[in-house]
Structures are given as structure tokens and as C-alpha cells.
């Protein structure tokens, strides 16, 4: 995109024959005649000229606009459904649950949210829970974990890192596993999705809870203490469950491949979000076959087991259903940004072209000497 030229090697002005690098007298102080020392290294010398800058603008514009359109269209084609079930409004089915929440309640509070999809969701559908105003990126929160413990290190299991304070030891002086504020605040609502047939029957949609975490997290970063085949209950002997949890970590799931520290819900939660509003993958609704849509158009009910309090800090809880594309989930931002930048480039190109035509001869005018 820039004009370039390689400068020619110049003669260094000294008697060339008498003083080659080797030809000089042995103890002469004459500096070596190397391109490096004489600052004559051949070089590419780009400069900004109309011939390079203007085309660059147009080319950027011409590349960016199609990319932007492509991104935008793709993003628009992604189907997404979002429902807020925090229960702020009196009318919300979860209002009662959110009002009556207490940490000590043993009976789970359930609420049912009916919704309908206007369009069928093809292909795999991903179910997310979204939280707002939840500062998972707060410094004290982010560091409140012990990676060694989560990696199955037995000494860290017994004495977690100081970073986990105040969730390091339980009140009876037992080490907490997993320790720290992140683990302690793990999202524990249970979401179940029902499809309401037009004839009124409720069928539970199978939700897959495996394959929602990164492979590296599941297989490298998180490991249960005592190896993969050990008895988890025994391995976690002598530790205490996190304060807010109802059950210990080794009872998160019945599937031994998905239990303990390598429980994927846990792993997903432990990957803290960058921003205070975030969504996390909860379940995958796998496509049954290519003939029927994964989620057909129609009515649904979301059953929420309301365990997770967010109203105290004005948080929000959402359930999101979304399909994906090559560019990930729905996000019109990139598409719009590309289209904007591309247009701006093009416009600037035109403006600069005009300016160049009017005033461009100034720089090439003769230099007074």
C-alpha cells in the first residue's frame, strides 16, 4: 500500500582501492566499511503518497463493506430467544420465588414461564443462562480461587490458597473444596424446557449437559483429586462444601465423568466472564434429525428451580435459546462496525481525492535551495 524504493548502495567517498575492510593497515583505526556501520543497509523506504494512500482507502472500503454485510446478514439469520425470569414484576411467575428466597430453605421453589417461539430453531440449539450486573470480573472475585486445588493437587485440597479468603475454611475449620468466592457463588438454578404440543401435552426436551465446557478446561485445567477413577467421596474426605452450596462438589452429578471438579456446569462457571453482563452455556439441545427442526415453532414452558438470588444486587437472570453460525452467536455489532468503517474509508477516500486534486501540487513544488 505504500510506495517503496530501495536505495542504491553509495560509494562511501574514500579511496576505494586502498582501504577495503581487509586492505587497511593492521592497526589502523579506520572504521570498517560495512553497510551496517556506515548506515547504508539497503532498506525499503515507504512514504505516504497519493498513489498509495488513496487506493488503500478505497480498497479497505471495498473489502470492509462486503464483509460487514456478510456478518450482518449472518448475525440476523441466527435465531435467538431470550426470556428474563428474575421475577421483578408482580406479574412474573417467578416473583414469588424471588421474594421468598432464603439461603436456608430446603424446599426448592419452582416457577414456570410459558413462552412461544415464532420460528422453528433448526440445527443444534444452545441454551444459555445470562446474568446481568454480576461482577464476575471484579478483581477480588477473579482471584478468589485456587487453581492448584481445582487441578487435583492434594495439598491444595487440604490447605487452599490464601486467595480464597474468606471462603477458604468453613466455620468448623475444614478446608473448603472448591474454595473461593467464584465457586461459592456458582449458579445453581435448574432449568428444564418443556414443549407444549398443540394438543396440550407437555414433553420435556432433552438437554445435554456435556460438551459445554472447553476441552482444555475439562481435561487439563480441572482434575479431581486422587486421579480419574478414584472414589470422589473418599477423595474429598475432610473437606467442606462451599458455604452457599446445598450439596458437596462430589454430588454435583451422578455421572462419574461429570462429577466433582470436572463437572461441566462448574467448569463453565469457573471461567469468569469479562463483563458484568454475560451469558454462559447451560445445555445443548441436540438436533434429532435433519427433517424436523430441533425446536419447532410453538409454545414452550421453562421450568425454573429458583435457587439463585440476584435481586439483592439488582441483577437479572435470563434464559437464552440460540442457534449459532460460523461467526458464533448473534451479534450484529461486528457487521455494523464493518459496514460503517468501510463506508467511512470510502468516503474519506473520495474527500482526500478531491483535496489531492486541489492542493496536491504543493508537496511536489520545487524546494527552495
Amino acid at each position, binding site marked *: 500500500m505504500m510506495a517503496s524504493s530501495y*536505495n*542504491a548502495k553509495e560509494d*562511501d567517498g*574514500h579511496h576505494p582501492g586502498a582501504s577495503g575492510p581487509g586492505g587497511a593497515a593492521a592497526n589502523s*583505526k*579506520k*572504521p*570498517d566499511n560495512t553497510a551496517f556501520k*556506515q*548506515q547504508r*543497509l*539497503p*532498506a*525499503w*523506504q515507504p*512514504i505516504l*503518497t*497519493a498513489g498509495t494512500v488513496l487506493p488503500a482507502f478505497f480498497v479497505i472500503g471495498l473489502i470492509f463493506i462486503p464483509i460487514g454485510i456478510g456478518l450482518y446478514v449472518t448475525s440476523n439469520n441466527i435465531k435467538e430467544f431470550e426470556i428474563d425470569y428474575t421475577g421483578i414484576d408482580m406479574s412474573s411467575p417467578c416473583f414469588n420465588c424471588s421474594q421468598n428466597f432464603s439461603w436456608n430453605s430446603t424446599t426448592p421453589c419452582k416457577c414456570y414461564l410459558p413462552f412461544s417461539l415464532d420460528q422453528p430453531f433448526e440445527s443444534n440449539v*444452545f441454551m444459555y443462562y445470562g446474568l446481568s450486573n*454480576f*461482577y464476575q*470480573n*471484579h*478483581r*477480588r*472475585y477473579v482471584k478468589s480461587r485456587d487453581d492448584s486445588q481445582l487441578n487435583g*493437587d492434594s495439598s491444595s485440597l487440604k490447605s487452599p490458597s490464601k486467595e480464597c479468603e*474468606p471462603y477458604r475454611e468453613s466455620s468448623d475449620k475444614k478446608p473448603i473444596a472448591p474454595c473461593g*468466592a467464584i465457586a461459592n*457463588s456458582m449458579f445453581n438454578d435448574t432449568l428444564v424446557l418443556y414443549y407444549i404440543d398443540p394438543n396440550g401435552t407437555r414433553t420435556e426436551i432433552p438437554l445435554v449437559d456435556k460438551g459445554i465446557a*472447553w476441552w*482444555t478446561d475439562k481435561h*487439563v485445567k480441572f482434575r479431581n483429586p486422587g486421579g480419574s477413577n478414584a472414589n470422589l467421596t473418599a477423595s474429598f474426605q475432610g473437606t467442606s462444601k462451599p458455604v452457599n452450596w446445598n450439596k458437596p462438589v462430589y454430588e454435583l452429578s451422578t455421572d462419574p465423568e461429570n462429577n466433582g471438579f470436572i463437572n461441566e456446569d462448574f467448569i463453565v462457571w469457573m471461567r469468569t466472564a*469479562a*463483563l*458484568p*453482563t454475560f*451469558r454462559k452455556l447451560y445445555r*445443548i439441545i441436540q438436533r434429532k434429525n435433519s427433517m424436523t427442526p430441533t425446536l419447532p415453532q410453538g409454545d414452550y414452558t421453562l421450568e425454573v428451580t429458583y435457587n439463585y438470588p440476584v435481586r*439483592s*444486587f439488582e441483577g437479572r437472570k435470563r434464559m437464552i435459546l440460540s442457534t*449459532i453460525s460460523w*461467526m*458464533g*452467536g448473534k*451479534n450484529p455489532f*461486528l457487521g455494523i*462496525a464493518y459496514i460503517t*468503517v468501510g463506508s*467511512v474509508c470510502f468516503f*474519506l477516500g473520495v474527500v*482526500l481525492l478531491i*483535496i489531492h486534486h486541489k*492542493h496536491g501540487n*504543493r*508537496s*511536489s*513544488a520545487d*524546494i527552495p*535551495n
Partner: protein
Amino acid sequence: MSFFGLDCVRKREREEERRLKANDRDYNLSFKYATNAIKTSKYNAITFLPLNLFEQFQRIANAYFLFLLVLQVIPAISSLSWFTTVVPLILVLFVTAAKDAIDDINRHRSDKKVNNRKVQVLINGELRSEKWLDVQVGDIIKLENNQFVTADLLLLSSSEPLNLVYIETAELDGETNLKVKQALTVTGDMGDSVTALAAFNGEVRCEPPNNRLDRFTGTLSFAGQKYPLDNEKVLLRGCTLRNTEWCFGLVIFGGQETKLMQNCGKTTFKRTSIDRLMNQLVLCIFGFLAIMCAILAIGNYIWELEEGSKFTVFLPREEGVDAAFSSFLTFWSYVIILNTVVPISLYVSVEIIRLGNSFFIEWDRKMYYERSDTPAEARTTTLNEELGQIKYIFSDKTGTLTQNIMTFNKCSINAKSYGDVIDYSGQRLEITEDMESVDFSFNPLADPKFQFYDHSLVEAVKLENTEVHAFFRLLALCHTVMAEEKNEGDLHYQAQSPDEGALVTAARNFGFVFRSRTPESVTIVEMGTQRVYELLAILDFNNVRKRMSVIVRSPEGKLCLYCKGADTIIYERLHQSCSKLMDVTTEHLNEFAGDGLRTLALAYKDLDEAYFKEWKQRHHEASTALEDREEKLDKLSEEIEKDLMLLGATAIEDKLQDGVAHTIEQLAKADIKIWVLTGDKQETAENIGYSCNMLREEMNEVFIVAAHSPEAVREELRKARTTMKPGAEDTFVSKTILGNTPKIVADETVSGEYGLVINGHSLAYALEPSMEVEFLRTACMCKTIICCRVTPLQKAQVVELVKRYKRAVTLAIGDGANDVSMIKAAHIGVGISGQEGMQAVLASDYSFAQFRFLQRLLLVHGRWSYLRMCKFLRYFFYKNFTFTLVHFWYAFFCGFSAQTVYNEWFITLFNLVYTALPVLGMSLFDQDVSDSWSFEYPQLYVPGQLNLYFSKTAFAKCVLHSCYCSLVLFFIPYGAMYDTVRDDGRDVADYQSFAVLAQTCLLIAVCIQLGLDMSYWTVVNHVFVWGSLTMYFVVTFTMYSNGMYLVFTASFPFIGSARNSLQQLNVWLTILLTSILCVLPVLTYRFLLIQLQPTINDRVRLKVLQAKAAPPPPRRRTRIRRTSTRRSGYAFSHVQGYGDLVTSRRYLHRPAKPRSSGFTPTGRSLVFNPTGRSAGYSPTGHNQSPKQEVEATSLQMYRTRDMSF
């Protein structure tokens, strides 16, 4: 030499008077005088670490980072791990310590070398060879020829008659002429008798150690008598014994207490203007940092009140921390995070760049002088960029602009001009070095160094042309030169002025060899036959007469008067019969003067024996007259020097250094003002001003200020100013005088070109506080300023004056000890090496062998250094601000919790590994245009003088640019990642992925910006840029790999995030978008600037592009020719000629001596050295009063001594 330029140790306590006894160590030891060992090193093996660290932490930057480190280990506020600071800090400390250690080892080595020199010491009645460091005060030591003087000695006795010794003081004051010291007769009588010396028990009482080289007072008590001691009896350490077989001396001061060591003084630490600006900016940045942290702390307070207090369900507060305390902690946490706005690596990088550019100066073959094998030397490595900002150059004349060599260049004999080489077509050829010079082999006594190119003159001599013979006979006879013939045919002339030497040498080569003289005779060898002329009278030169004559009687008994002098003077005294010859000769003289040569006219007159006898009688009477002797003598001279017959004219070239005129022209084009400050007399200085094209005929006027009272000087300055700018008398002066703080005198523009010549007397008045502004204003309106007859101190005062009132960078260039003060005073001092001693070079910041290299030093190296440094600073501030401000924006989304955007390792390595080399590469190799184009357009230098490339405005632009970029770098990823998932539905908006995205965007954006800034992509730059980018990905993937995590679980929690996020297409699309968005405004802005307001730089670069990078066409070097008024230079010294001395017998004892002692002098002969300058110079520069006009030549010194014999 090794013991120069090093720090001296302070005296422990004041010593009132020094008392010592010769050969009495016990007595002398009781005073605890310093021994002769010197120590210039700072550390030893044990003290190195603590002392060096202590010194290093005295620097603000290092202390600041130590402070940060302390903050970081406090858990409550530690937002970054300790290693982010420790790694760079240790690196910086280590590099500096290594450099200091190497320096100190070198000092140790040189100390050791000096301390271990051997000298013969008289101990217990016998001479023993001892090391220098073992010599004690009160010891008697024996020095031999060409040995260094061990310590400050009282001279006791010497091998030479009259107890004289000859010493060279080049190392002490830079003067190469020999000086004479003489011992007291009472001690001299001891000779080299060891028994007598061992029995010598004289007691010396003298002044305590001090730094005055030119003074010594004391008394010697010996055998019941007291003898006064003065400087004439003392040999100082640092001198070298010459032409003296041996001498004995008594050690008075040793080691640190010698005058040499007392004199080396503190070297003032020079800082560049960019340094000062940088310090100011760093202070601003600290303020900026504090403001940012305060904003964020307030934000944290509000957040804690509004959100944090409710969020305690999931994120409980630490005990005892409320919102206010939390905000206090946050303040410090952010100080740690945002500390990168004041990057530690900035200072290190700046030093590296300067060092690199210094090396480039030293490596430059075009600043290497083949003949003396001297490469340029950057003695200071911290001033390079200032070389690109020079506005004023103060130059010495002799030895700097001129070679101080006079050559006989042309002559006009009997209406025929010789000296030009003419080719077959009648065209005058330029004389070059490879031209064949005249072969003088017919003359065995010819000086082989003499070069002449016109063969016709030799032909004329060989054809025994009468006029030509008479011409050279005159040159061989009419002078006051002394000849010294060491071996048969090996003639050495000691001339009062180099002009005379050149003339006599010319005659010698053309077959009229001046061989020797006695008070009554002159012996010359005329075309092989020796003839003795009886010398009857010398009518000597002085400033009024401007001529000298001799009256001789030839061996045939013919009386003749030979006269040479300024052409105007001679022409008035010519016989009418020569009028025709006069016209032609005048033409020749004009031609010679047009070439910038100094001319003399030669004439003779045959005398009548009777008339002369009578005249001689009257002359004798007049010379013994008590009243009006001078007047009477002048009258008599006037009487006999008339009706002369013109012989011809000589033209002598005061050889300029090579390329001086061209260099000055180039520097003038670069808008650099050159002031010549010379100790020379006015005529010579003016002459050189013309010949090096500083003064020109086409100048509107050249003002000459040579008044003798302050009022007159002020009047002349005023007059000059009103001439230049009529009616421009303003209120400015009074304001300046009233104000206490020095004001900046703005440049005033005048139409037309003017020159100003001011002499030392007037300068003394002009430099008084009440008049200095007046002088400066007048001077700055002129194109050329020449100050003549100035003392070293005045030179420094002039430099200080300009420094004080002009916001401009000054450079002083000189070669001699008399230039040291100005070299030290100026922002940058340049020494011409390999000429007169070492003092100037040792005091200088840069040194090279030829004045013309200055052009390259400034226009190429200086310009590049400045450009590079500015580019570096702009880029560096941009890079670090952009890097840091992203944290600031992120704070608004993470509850002001001092969470970093990037991974800690990235923060640690960003400045040190990922971006260090590319920016270093740029600042070491960048060039906007090549050196030849820099010479083609010296105007390219002007932006540096105006501080255009890096200033507060430029800095503000950088900050704005960074703000924009950081906003882009945060919000584009923010928008792109908001609620986004991967293409397999899993998370990608997590903190770690976001960090990877943000840091990758940042790195690529700053790399592209670097690419945009860099205008010279060498292989090294490519390697650095692409290598660093590659390095980033390699290091990132390595650190985020499984292996690293499994080994160091706690240190690398980012496992897998690089793999998981960088495989996403939309991540790369985000990176592309941010990069383009970061660059777009810059590109537009720069392009618009080039289109609308192209700088000289842009234009030249465009031109270079158009010229397809071919080197610029060879310049048409027009030979500087002036059709000008004649400036006849009878360039004798400032003092009256020494005709008196020649005719008196007094000084002639010297030639006899070497023969009688059978000793051949090896060094320079001492007899005359009229070129010796600045005898009144004291290196401290403070002891002289401004009006002092000491200019005692060695001849005068010699004379006074002679009287006392």
C-alpha cells in the same frame, strides 16, 4: 592520557602552609601529605554492589519502581504480581551496574598503569628505581629526557647550562611549544652529584595544594639562607621533559595534591534539551497518573456504595474495609496498574539509542581522517540528539578553520605571474593533490615538504633570470628567521610568523638557502655557492610601518637595502621608473587577493656607501637618543626606504582546513549561525573570514567595532543596529535590564546581509551586564560575527551570553587549550583532535580531525539522532499510553476493582520483549532521507532547531492519539465480545479470552503504528518487527500451554485461552477492525498534512522517490572566487618583530650549547615559538579578570629572562 578527565577527591582538611624537608621522610610523613598514588576509581570488589545500588536508586526512575515494588507486595492493593516490576527493574539495574563496573575496571587499570611507572628516587644516598606510587613528598627524584614528570617538583639541578630544563606542557595546557624552567643556582651547583643531593637538607615552605597552574609561591631555606621560589622553578606533573638529559627535583606535591589532579575538576554533567523536556513530561505524567487514579478511586467509592455493598452476597468485603478505605486501596492499586505510563524501559531505551548513535558516529568512515589515522570519537554518549538542534556554532580559528600552515603559493616577479598551472589550451587548472609538483632535486638543501606546481618558475631560476634571483635573494635575506642545522643539510627554521617561514622556505627551495646568521651576518647558499652577507641594519616591522627592511653588504661589497611589506605601503615608496611594472603587479596582486591569498610586495634599492655611512651614524645617534627615540628612528627609516625598485609580490596562503568554506556555506544554509572567536589579530581574522566565505564582498556592510571606551562601543553597536534596521529603537532593552530573570531575546530579522567584527577590548565592554543585550541583539542581526583578540575566558562568556538569552542550542569547536572554557560552556563541545595537544579533545563531547566533519556530524548524524530520538519518544509515549489507558476504560466495567485487561505476563513482557526491539530498531536505523540528500538540502536541519519533532504539543498529540486508540482497543472488542459465543456455542466472552483478544489487538495495532512511523525498513527492522510478533504468539501459546500449567499451576492460569479464542474467525475479524480503526485517523491526518502543509521533509522525500533513490547529482562545486579589494596581510605576530634580538648577541647562546655538550636535541627546538598562544590561560577559567589582555608570547617571556642573566 589516562589520568585526565577523571574525578578528583576532595581535600580532607584545609592545609594552611606546606612544610617539607628534603631527604627527611620521617619529618614529612608527620604531615600526612598525600602520596604520589592516584585513585580515580570509585569502587572495589566489596563496595561495588552496595555503592552502585545506592547510586542507582538515587535516580528518580529507579526509586519510583522500587516504591512500586513495595506497593505490590502489600496484598490488599497488589493488583499486579511482583514480577511485573521486578523483572524490568532487575534488568535495568543489571545493565547499568555492568556498564559502571566496566568503566571502573578501566579506571582501575589506568590507575594501576600510572601508579606503577618507574622513576629513580634518591633513597639513603643511592638512586633506586621505584614505582610512582611509592614516591613521597620530600623525596629527590631523577628524571631523564622524554620522561613524564612524576609529581610536582621543585627543580634542583639539570644537565643543561644555567640549570635550565625544557618541558612540554601539552598535557597540561595543550601548548606544544617547549617551556623553560630554571633551578636556583644554589641547588643547581649540586649537579648530578648523588652525595651532594643526598646531603641536601633544604626546607621548603610553600602554598598548600591548589589548582593554579601559573602560580607558585614558596621559600627554600638552605644553609641558613632563604631563597624565594616561584613558578619558574617548579615542574608540574603531566609535563614531559624534553631536550634535557637529566634533572633532579624535590617532590612538593604528590598524587591527588598535584596541580594536575587538582585541576581536573568536576566534569559538569550536560543534559540535552530533550532530557529536560522529558523530565518535565514525566512530571506531568505523574500528575496525570495521580488524576487518573483519583478518578478511578472516586469511581470505586461510588461503586462500592451503590453496587458493592449489595454484591456482598457473592463477594464479601474484607474485614474492616468500607467504601472509603476500599477507594483508598484502589487508588494505590491503580497506581500499580497504570504505572506503565512512566515506563522504566524508557530511560534504558533512550540510553541504548544514544549509545547506538554514538557508535555510528565513531564508525563513520567519512569522519575518519586518513592522514592522522583519527576516527571521530563520541566522548559523551548522552548528547546525540542535541546535535540535530544546533543553532549557534562558536568556532576557534587557528587550527580549527585554518591549518596554521602558510604556504608560498604564487608570486609575481617582474611583471610575470608564477604559480598557476596552465594547460595547453591556456585554461587555469585547479591544483589537486595528485598533480605533479616541481622537482627540487637539483637543490640538496631543499625542504622536501615544500610543494609548488608551476614549473616555469624553476626554469626561470635555472636560467639565471636576474630579477628572479634578486627576488629570492631578498626573501632569503630580509627576515628575522633563525636557522638551526642539526645535521648537515637538515635545516630547521624558527620563524616569528608562519608567513615569514613560508617565504624563507620558498627561497630555500628555489636555490637561495638561508643557512645561518650571526648578529652581523647572514649566510645563504645561492644556487649552490655559499655567500656571507654582512648584515648592517634591520629596520624592523611594526604595526604602523607594515614593512621591514634589511641593509646588507654583499660579498662583493655592494650595499643594498631589501624591503618587503604591505603593497600599499611599498607602492608609496617606489621609484617613478617602476610605474609600468606597478600596474602589472597591481593586477597580479588583485588576482592573488581574489583567491584569498595574503600578499606582500618586495622591493630593493642599491645604496651609496657614503650616504649609508652618514645615515648609519645618524641612526646610531637616534637609537641612543633619550627623547623621541622611536620617532627619530621612524624618520630615519622613512628617509632611507624610498625610491625603491619594485621586484614583485608574493602570495601566501593561510591554508584553510579542507572543505571549510563549503562546510560553512552548508551550515549557513541549515540556518546555523557561526561565530568565530579567535585570539588572532583583527586583520588575520578578517582575512580568514573572507577566505572561508563568511564575510563576503556582496554583504551590505561589515561593521567593525574596535573602540576603547564603553560609551564608544555602545555607540558603535547602536550605529550598526540603526544601519541594519533604521528607526527600530524600542523599549526592549530597558525591560530586560529591569527584570531579574534573564529574558529570551527574540530573533530580529533584517533585510540584507551584514557582518560584525569586534575586537577583544570592545568585547570586554560589550560583555558587561549593562551592554550584553545590546551586543547580542546587534550580533544576532548580522550574518557573521568575528571576535578577534579574545581571551579564553571571553570565549566562554560569549557562549554563556548566547546560552542565557537565546533559547537555542550552542556548539563550540576548537582545538587548543584556549578553547577549553568555551567547549565546556557550550551545550556541545567539539574538539579537533590530532593537532595541538589534547586539552580541547579531553574537554570535548565529540572529537574529530577536521573541521569539515562538523557538517556531517550535524547535518547527518545530528539530524538523524534527533529524528530518531523524537520518533522514539513519540512512539514510546503513544505505545505506553495506549497500553495503559485500556485499563482505565475497563475500570468502568469491572467495578473499579483494579482488574487488569491483560494477562500479567503480557504486562511484564510487553515493554521488554514484545515491543522493545521493533522500536529500538526504528530508533537506531531510521533515516528519513539518505546522507547525500541531507547534504543536498541542508534546510532539512531547520525543524530540529525549532524543536518541531518533539515538543509539548507533539506530546499532547501523542496522548490524544493514544486516548483514541485505547478507546478503539477497548470498545471494539467489547462490542464484538458482548454476549457472543464461539462457533461451537461455548463461551468466548470470558475474562481470559477477552484479555487474549485485547492484548493481541493492542500488539498488532502498535506494530502497525510503528510500521507507519518507520521510514527506513532495513533487514534488521524486518527481523525485529516480524520477530517480535512471532515471539508474541510463540510466547503466548507456550505460556498458555498444558505443560506450563501443569508445572506452574499458579503462574499460568490462562491455559488454553489462546488456542480457544484465536481459532475463532470473529476474533480475527475484530483484530483486523481495531487495527484499521487505530490507523485510519493517523493515516488521514498525515496524508492531509502532506497535501496541505508539506514540510521540507515531505518534499525532499517525495523528490527522493521521484529521483528513484539515485544519489543526488554531483554538486557543481563552484570555485569561490572573488573580485575583491585587496587585503594585504603582513601577517606577522601581534608583537613587534624581533629585529632587535637578531642583531643583539643576547639570545645566541643556545646554538652553541648542544655542540659543546655533545648532545643532540631530539624534540622541537625551543629558541622561538612565536605561534605559542594563550600563555595567560588558566584552565579554571575563573581567575582572570574579564579585561585582562595577557598575550605574552614565549618570546617575551624569553626576553625578560634574558635580562636577568
